[in-house]
């Protein structure tokens, strides 16, 4: 397995992910966020430039403010409800996605393929797995119903041509296959890694590099990807994390629970 060489930096991979993902948020959006990097990224955006961004948690919370240093262990504890606008049953918060109130779903990923399908269920064959992973949680629901951002480490074993098991549908087999399966809404919008930012071709729905992080080359990204990547006509280079951004992250997660 080829490991990439990260440019020398004053931040961790998770911090890089959180910063890059936070910049994809827009003020006023309603973001359904998973725990860890997604929560940190959404909160970072909220603190810096998107005060009207609203976070939803799968556990049943609308619009909480996270208390620095008191990050929740999952989306289902009382820490997720601090100073929130509303708490509601799990089923009902997930139904907000189905009804269409949510702009963006935002989660981490264990394995992703060229069409943005995510696997968090099985490594190897499902009937005879090498590793039984924890499973979908709300992942299948969120990715079936809304536009998605995924943040994950860029490794060849994680970026594969076809995932072993489609836990959360991306663009399935590309083209119109997602809509044809009965999923006319949503789809994987952005993949944020420690190397690059990727989207998907409008027609083929193949993964396509849109931006490279500072000091990262196309070759590095391709080397760490298990399938042939497309590259956009105009690739941008992202600005490295600013001190201000890192400061907020470190205030939120002083023990580096999610940013180690």
């Amino acid at each position: 397995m080829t490991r990439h060489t990260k440019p020398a930096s004053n931040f961790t991979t998770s911090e890089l992910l959180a910063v890059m993902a936070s910049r994809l948020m827009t003020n006023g959006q309603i973001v359904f966020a998973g725990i860890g990097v997604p929560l940190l990224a959404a909160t970072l955006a909220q603190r810096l430039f998107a005060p009207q961004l609203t976070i939803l948690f799968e556990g049943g919370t609308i619009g909480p403010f996270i208390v620095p240093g008191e990050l929740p262990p999952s989306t289902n504890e009382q820490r997720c409800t601090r100073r929130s606008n509303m708490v509601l049953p799990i089923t009902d918060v997930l139904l907000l996605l189905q009804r269409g109130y949510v702009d963006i779903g935002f989660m981490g990923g264990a394995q992703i393929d060229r069409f943005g399908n995510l696997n968090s269920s099985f490594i190897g064959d499902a009937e005879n797995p090498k590793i039984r992973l924890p499973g979908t949680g709300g992942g299948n629901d969120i990715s079936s119903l809304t536009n998605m951002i995924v943040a994950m480490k860029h490794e060849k074993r994680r970026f594969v041509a076809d995932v072993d098991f489609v836990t959360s549908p991306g663009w399935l087999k590309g083209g119109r296959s997602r809509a044809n399966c009965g999923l006319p809404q949503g789809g994987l919008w952005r993949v944020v890694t420690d190397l690059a930012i990727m989207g998907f071709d409008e027609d083929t729905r193949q993964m396509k590099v849109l931006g490279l992080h500072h000091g990262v080359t196309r070759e590095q990204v391709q080397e760490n990807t298990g399938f042939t990547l497309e590259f956009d006509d105009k690739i941008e280079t992202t600005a490295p994390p600013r001190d201000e951004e890192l400061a907020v992250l470190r205030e939120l997660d002083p023990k580096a629970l999610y940013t180690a």
Partner: protein
Amino acid sequence: MSIEPLVKSYSALRHETLTRDRGLREKVMTLEDAAKLVHDGNHVAIGGCTVSRTPLAMIWALIRARKRDLVISRSITSTEGDLFFASGVSQHVITSWFTQGIVWGVSKVMRHHTENKLAKFEEWSHMSIGLRYRAGAMGIPFMPSRTMLGSDVGKRVGDEIKVMDCPFTGEKIVLLPALNPDVALIHVQRCDAYGNAQLDGLQFMDIDMAMAANKVILTTERIVSNDQIRRTPDRTRIPFFTVDAVVEAPFGCAPHECYGLYEPFFEHLDHYAKISSQDPVKGPQRYLDEFYYGPKSWPDYLAKLGMEALLDASRRGRSVHND
């Protein structure tokens, strides 16, 4: 294990409910007596989610009573799933996510049992489990839904879901089968002796689960008077006639959390994560011996968790009321 159809016929569902004693009556009992209401082979639904409002006191009693062949369902399954497998109480868990918690890594105990085909982890999407309980709660045989399509999660449950063309819009729509558990275990902050229960904070899937089940065992931090319930009826979430047992079990979710009262006992959970990942067989076995089979009572179990840990969890737990 019961060989029942996936979805109960309406006549069977109504008959079961009709023959329950739904009258207003006191139903306070001990954990041990409540455990007798759960029969080997029952489908038991577990309230709360991950490490939140898990009815651990009742689970503790079921494991001590050496129940067998339970089918367990829960929104998201944490340490209690490990212990169901490790204790031999269940070899079948229906859930959307199964591992102690994201900060502790993938459960080695879950992996050991599933990868070696000692037990089954039946995976449904989170919302689908919720909607299955909801259909059960509403007395309908299925709930329309729009997820699990196209994915292997949907394919793997096979013909337990149906896909139909909507007669109104012509679109594809999923029909999820209703789930009416034999028993639901639910922990609440307070209820009266009849079982009128008030839940603060996150509700998870507990209300639908209670309405769907054929039997409800409530554990509660405290039993309050019926008068107190009647003063704030719009805070009651579970009505007495769905409830079959009320057990007062203070700190009944420890080392998990109970909203507004105590947060998770993190050091204890770190300890469990450590020993269970060092050895996914002997680790949980040792844990069960020490904390489940060993203590002579629920207070004795709490004493083993430690006074300091309990006070610390309580201090953190009450903090939501400081705002």
